[in-house]
């Protein structure tokens, strides 16, 4: 078992869910496939989907909902 960290490709505000009332994209323990959406980053009034660039199980979500994130910041840790 290894681990992989999904990082942000853009700066902005990180969201766990597609809309305030919706379920989060992923929670701890969820399994994700490569290409699955794990969150949103809002920047310049547009929402950019954060996609898993590896498959695995979510071991940790490293940022709070609505945290401001920078490029390259660790967002979600996977056990692969």
């Amino acid at each position: 078992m290894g681990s992989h960290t999904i990082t942000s490709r853009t700066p902005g505000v990180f969201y766990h869910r597609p809309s305030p009332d919706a379920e989060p994209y992923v929670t701890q323990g969820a399994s994700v496939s490569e290409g699955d959406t794990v969150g949103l980053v809002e920047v310049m009034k547009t929402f950019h989907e954060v996609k898993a660039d590896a498959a695995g199980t979510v071991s940790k979500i490293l940022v709070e909902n609505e945290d401001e994130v920078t490029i390259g910041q660790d967002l979600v840790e996977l056990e692969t």
Partner: protein
Amino acid sequence: MSVIVKDPGLETTVQDTGRLGYYSIGFPPSGALDSFAYHVGNALVGNEPGAAALEAVYLGPTLEFTQDTVIAVTGAEIPAFIDGEEIPIWESVAVSSGSVLSFGQLRAGARPYVAVAGGIDVPLYYGSRSTYTLVGIGGFEGRALRAGDELAIGSEARDPRAGRRVDPGDVPEHPATAEVHLLVGLHSYRLTPESLERFTGTDWKVTPDANRVGYRFRGAELEFVPREQPFGAGSDPANVTDCGYPVGSVQVPGGVEPIVLLQDAVTGGGYATLGTVVSVDRAKLAQTKTGDKVRFVPVDLDGALAVRQERLAALDRIRSALA
């Protein structure tokens, strides 16, 4: 001869020197935000100075070329690849038909530019090929690029040649705190003297609300001098009788989050403006991203003109060296 958009990036648009001459009817200039990177890109690929190029932000696009040509990537510090092989930026590079340009993760700056020999050939709209997305005009169908778009390339490159290279000393740096020069004035008297000092003394953080229209900052609160509002201005102390906004002017709606208006901004309105960023320094602002810091350095008119002359002279020198 064309470029096929495989992946558009975040918001990639066609831009040139801008749509000048229609400000008085409400058209902002649009055009490349980092005019330095844009002009140097054209010089690298041997284009005439006003040829249209692509401006991306944060995420570079993935582009396929349908014919042999020469390209150059300038602006932000970002790894660029042709068919997976890293290529130098601030340097003209030959690409062959079928080649794909892609980008890695941005290291510094915010906006990469892609210049192509011959320029991006979209129709002129009010004298410019620049995209102005707010009303959907100019550029490619008046909007940011989408996957599957096919952009024509102009055939009139003056002198396309690979291997032209900008002297490393001339490549702009992207410091942790960008300094831009500000000519204080316009309605600066509406702010208390302490607030004006606070404005130039603060390292302002770029918020996520930072795009071609304008940059919104966070970092301090500013206070207006209380007054009885003049007729026509409306009741909010941040308001003045509606007037024209210079490109690059700074306004503070509500006193909390100053906004610098950029090339796609509104041309006028009723917010008090406290000064204007010197035109050549908008290029520096364009390379700051959400989370970066910006400091406004006050200058007088002579100082502003000196900054302008110095920057334009440097561009002339670089162009001559690349010719």
